[in-house]
């Protein structure tokens, strides 16, 4: 310890400096969201608010104009939840079943199928916008929440399948064989034996999917239609479309509101996330 005390100081100084650098924008956003508008106009973006107020938050939540619709972010928050919850649940469960089928029921063509699924991880979103729009139109789902959920599930399955397949490679085949001899079929083995083992990977997949889908802007703006826009699209419309003077405090508050769910998810479950990412590596 003695040997390293001076290098420790340098190390911590570097870490603190890096942390300050990355946290500085967040600080500015938080401070600005708590200032009245005239304080912002007076300049000094670093300064703490002289008269802190939550009025900008209230406005962003309930009365700010999103495009021509002055209802705040609240209804769009609901849209986001209605998209995220089913999309996460479905993509994680389907990914788990896929990973299980690909590793524990080695059927003919499993490797080809997996390779095809992997391609899905690498196709840029922009490439599939038009074909996807056609598919959704054909299904009669264009501009609906269900359509958006379908898009996210379709895209998410590639990643979740990859995650669960690699996780299940580390689960001994003999456990599955034992369960089959014990009388369990495909789904009984999955639900009674494999799924209870998968908690760390379920957490990882759910967190990844949640943040990915919550933060999505592109699919939301293209496929949702005006009434079903998720909160990210609403935030953009709120910040860019307001007439007259820019209300920076409201914009900042809206940005924070939009980011809050993913921030909370990370803070609350970051530990499980790390544990899950390494779980497969440690125990066979």
């Amino acid at each position: 310890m003695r040997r390293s005390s001076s290098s420790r100081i340098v190390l911590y100084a570097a870490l603190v400096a890096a942390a300050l650098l990355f946290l500085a924008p967040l600080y500015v956003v938080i401070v600005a969201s708590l200032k009245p508008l005239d304080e912002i106009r007076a300049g000094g973006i670093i300064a703490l608010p002289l008269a802190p107020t939550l009025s900008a938050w209230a406005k962003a939540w309930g009365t700010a104009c999103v495009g021509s619709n002055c209802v705040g972010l609240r209804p769009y928050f609901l849209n986001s939840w209605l998209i995220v919850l089913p999309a996460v649940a479905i993509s994680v469960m389907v990914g788990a079943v896929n990973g299980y089928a690909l590793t524990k029921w080695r059927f003919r063509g499993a490797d080809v199928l997996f390779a095809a699924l992997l391609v899905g991880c690498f196709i840029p979103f922009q490439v599939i916008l038009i074909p996807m729009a056609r598919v959704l139109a054909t299904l009669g789902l264009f501009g609906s929440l269900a359509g958006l959920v379908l898009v996210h599930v379709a895209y998410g399955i590639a990643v979740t399948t990859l995650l669960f397949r690699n996780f299940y490679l580390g689960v001994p085949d003999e456990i599955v064989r034992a369960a089959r001899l014990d009388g369990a079929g495909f789904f009984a083995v999955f639900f009674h034996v494999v799924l209870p083992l998968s908690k760390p990977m379920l957490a990882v997949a759910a967190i990844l999917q949640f943040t990915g889908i919550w933060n999505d802007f592109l699919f939301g703006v293209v496929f949702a239609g005006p009434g079903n826009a998720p909160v990210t699209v609403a935030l953009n419309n709120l910040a860019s479309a307001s007439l007259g003077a820019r209300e920076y405090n409201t914009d900042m508050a809206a940005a924070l509101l939009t980011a809050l769910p993913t921030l909370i998810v990370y803070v609350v479950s970051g530990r499980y996330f790390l544990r899950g990412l390494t779980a497969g590596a440690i125990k066979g």
Partner: protein
Amino acid sequence: MSALAIEGVAKRFGAVAVLNDIWLEVASGEFMVLLGPSGCGKSTLLNIVAGLEHSDAGRIVIGGEDVTTREPRDRNIAMVFQSYALYPTMSVRRNMAFGLRMRGMSRVEADRLVEDAARLLQIDALLERRPGQLSGGQRQRVAIGRAIVRQPKLFLFDEPLSNLDAKLRAEMRLELKELHRRLGATIVYVTHDQVEAMTLATRIAVMNGGAIEQIGAPQEVYDRPASAFVAGFTGAPAMNLLSGQVVGIAGGFGFRPDGADGDIALGSLRLCSLRAGQRVLFGIRPEDIGPSAANGPDGGCVITLTKLLVEPTGADSHVIFRLGHAKITARFKPGDVPLGECPPVAFNVSRASLFDAETGRRL
């Protein structure tokens, strides 16, 4: 009626033939051990019996019913795995009850059967624990308990003791034998450990290269190995196999090991098919080489053995000699270890085996 009949089973993985036309019948109550080196196909054969893998040809008949195309769960069998394969998220109780519950038994009735089986295996104090909280020996007991609680027609064991340390392995071996006696169960047991095979089996099937080399009672396999492979695989230390040729000597035939300066008289081996000059393998167990009062009939050196090493094991000492081009191992009582360049050693030829040098089959 046989409990299990394996009829002409064959299996290929791509270009590699893993099993060639396997025929095997296991009588009810028998403890059949499939013995062989890794890669000989014994585990694949067990998996085919279990229905976990499909054979390319042949039939599996369990209790008189053809189950070749049936799912594992519809074969009324239980299996114990090398890695135990307990369900890690379930308690011991739920592990053992799982098979019963999957078959629709009520919780109360399953619990009663689980507790009976747990008492039999002395794991009733562990029922509420998770597998992760158990030692290796306890886990193996639970795995066996999970198998017996269902009272299947047939038990399959896939190297169940390989993950245990030597002492525990010996203990569990005894317990398995005792369990077999008490339950009267029919067991097919795969191992590469010839000691397990000898001690547990009522019959052994020795496998090599995807084929069964010999089926027989343990003592029969040990005393009269059907091939040089079986001879070399059974016994510890294994049977000595000397290559050489048959020579004519006064009063019959002798065996001249390659590079040796003398012959071993084969008089007491009653074989009619020998001819002088024939290439053979001469197999003799370490315990069939013993001390002798003198070497030849007239006290002369009949064959030169050079002592290389002595391995004391406590009860016996293994003495390694050079004989011609080969090394042979003999088992002596510690006090009998011979001295000198041409030690007085006798071969108990009546217990020796001769194998065809080319085919390896017993002559």
